[in-house]
């Protein structure tokens, strides 16, 4: 049997030692009625060769031409060394580093990751990651609400009033969906994104809305535009709300880090780590990052690694602040989360070490330049225009003058992943595609996309 090493002799010897006549006897505490399940619909097992042949056939069906869709998942170059190292059995098949002495490799990697993420975001502290960008936003909101409820409680208020979270500008709609699912049962209401005609934050609508416990702003925003983060941060600070920044880690090589937004910076920063050496892979596994200020460190959910010393005084690493976590605090934990995406964090750490500040900056700059080239190429066509005029990073909204959904399907038929039709998520942008060009896209790729779009529009 696959992966079960026992010989017939092993089985006999072991049963004899136990004093059981058969393996089935070991299940004699289970009601016989429960042992009559029909597993008939399952297929027969196959060897690795046949499994891989079948899976390869399916994988080949999904192979496409160059990808021009971003929307939270980006086709960046991944240095070969990243997954050679992350796939080492010592990293890949290790458990959570609860036994610190036997896990110094994983623990030091996480410490280095924490160092890199705080440097990138200019925030004080971060955890060892959460599941993905959407769940990171959900956890950020829960954190902000815990902090603000604590403040209110100290002011004598009760917990029962629903808490409002404002969304300044275009935040990823799928992140918002996930965050709403995660926070819904805790008296939290996440508002609709407040977007002005220029595609960026509608500050007037923010001021006119209900008083929020926290304000969420994404940089660059979901529509690719560079947001008015200083103004939004200042507004939040002056209205007693915490500021949650959702950021793209590649963009942070170029853009002002959230720790420096406004006068005092963001309070909580989250996002998805996929751009840092993680393949698109249908969106997962990736990892969510979650950074904050020192004063909120005890509100931070999930694992955190600290540097300390061993009994001989030598430096070493261990999980710390565990008293906040579910396995100790149970019903009073900061979250039920008990995972970090360790393997993906390992990959991201190696990626950031290989890229360095200059490598990441060049990647970001190249992405921006390529996307500008793409927008120029596409809008050189008669019926295609840029929807918004503000500065963008590596994504842009182009208006093709007709419903974009069917056009994307036509592009797909010619093998091009040609941007995301926005009508489903933003009905007022039904004629628009959200397009992206990473550093991997060549002039030939861009020309091929332009050609395919021209043909689709000529139909």
């Amino acid at each position: 049997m696959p992966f079960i090493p026992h010989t017939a002799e092993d089985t006999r010897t072991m049963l004899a030692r136990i004093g059981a006549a058969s393996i089935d006897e070991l299940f004699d505490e289970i009601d016989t009625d429960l042992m009559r399940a029909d597993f008939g619909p399952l297929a027969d097992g196959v060897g690795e060769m046949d499994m891989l042949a079948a899976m390869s056939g399916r994988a080949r069906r999904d192979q496409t031409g160059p990808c021009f869709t971003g929307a939270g998942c980006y086709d960046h170059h991944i240095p070969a060394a990243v997954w050679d190292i992350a796939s080492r059995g010592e990293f890949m098949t290790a458990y959570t580093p609860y036994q610190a002495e036997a896990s110094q490799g994983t623990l030091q990697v996480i410490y280095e990751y924490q160092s890199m993420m705080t440097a990138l975001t200019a925030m004080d502290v971060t955890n060892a990651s959460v599941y993905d960008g959407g769940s990171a936003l959900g956890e950020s909101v829960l954190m902000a609400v815990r902090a603000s409820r604590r403040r209110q409680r100290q002011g004598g208020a009760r917990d029962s009033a629903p808490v409002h979270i404002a969304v300044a500008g275009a935040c990823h709609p799928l992140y918002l969906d996930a965050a709403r699912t995660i926070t819904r049962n805790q008296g939290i209401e996440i508002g609709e994104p407040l977007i002005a005609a220029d595609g960026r934050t509608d500050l007037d609508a923010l001021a006119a809305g209900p008083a929020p416990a926290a304000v969420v702003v994404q940089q660059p925003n979901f529509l690719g535009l560079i947001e008015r983060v200083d103004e939004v941060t200042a507004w939040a600070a002056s209205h007693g709300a915490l500021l949650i920044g959702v950021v793209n880690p590649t963009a942070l090589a170029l853009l002002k880090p959230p720790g420096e937004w406004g006068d005092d910076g963001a309070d909580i920063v989250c996002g998805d780590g996929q751009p840092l050496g993680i393949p698109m892979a249908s969106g997962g596994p990736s990892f969510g990052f979650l950074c904050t200020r020192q004063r909120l460190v005890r509100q931070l959910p999930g694992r955190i690694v600290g540097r300390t010393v061993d009994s001989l005084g030598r430096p070493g690493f261990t999980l710390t602040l565990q008293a906040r976590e579910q396995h100790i605090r149970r019903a009073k934990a900061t979250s039920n989360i008990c995972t970090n995406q360790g393997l993906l964090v390992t990959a991201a750490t190696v990626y950031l070490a290989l890229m360095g500040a200059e490598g990441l900056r060049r990647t970001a700059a190249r992405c921006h330049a390529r996307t500008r080239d793409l927008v120029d190429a596409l809008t050189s066509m008669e019926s295609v225009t840029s929807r918004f005029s503000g500065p963008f990073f590596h994504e842009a909204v182009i208006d093709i003058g007709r419903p974009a959904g069917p056009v994307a399907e036509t592009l797909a038929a010619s093998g091009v992943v040609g941007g995301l039709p926005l009508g489903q998520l933003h009905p007022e942008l039904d004629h628009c595609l959200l397009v992206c060009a990473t550093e991997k896209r060549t002039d030939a790729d861009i020309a091929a996309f332009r050609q395919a779009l021209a043909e689709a529009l000529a139909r």
Partner: protein
Amino acid sequence: MSETPAELRYAATHEWAQLRDGVVTVGISDFAQDALGDVVYVELPELDQEVAAGAEIAVVESVKAASDIYAPVSGTVVAINDGLEDAPERVNQDPYGDGWFFKLEPLDSGELDNLMAADAYQDHCETGEARES
């Protein structure tokens, strides 16, 4: 055997309270600090915070546990022990002295009578029913 000074009053949740000059000083008992192990952090209330008896008002955290501290009587916070921020080990070293948490101006000092005397608290700890809350 943990110390249980006779001049203090005790809550079932292991806080001690002492009324002096109209102000109630609150900390955690020797038994509690011993059960928690090395205290690494204390989250204190804000000055002027009003609190009802039995309400969660602070958190004490060790490597292995984080426990809520409940106000033993109703009142207003008039002092907090800032020194615990940099030296939480004082809770272990001197739970009834330097390791105090905060002081309350009680609404009704009669509420202290609802707390246990030292010998009753000692019994409470020994019966094994004294689960950390």
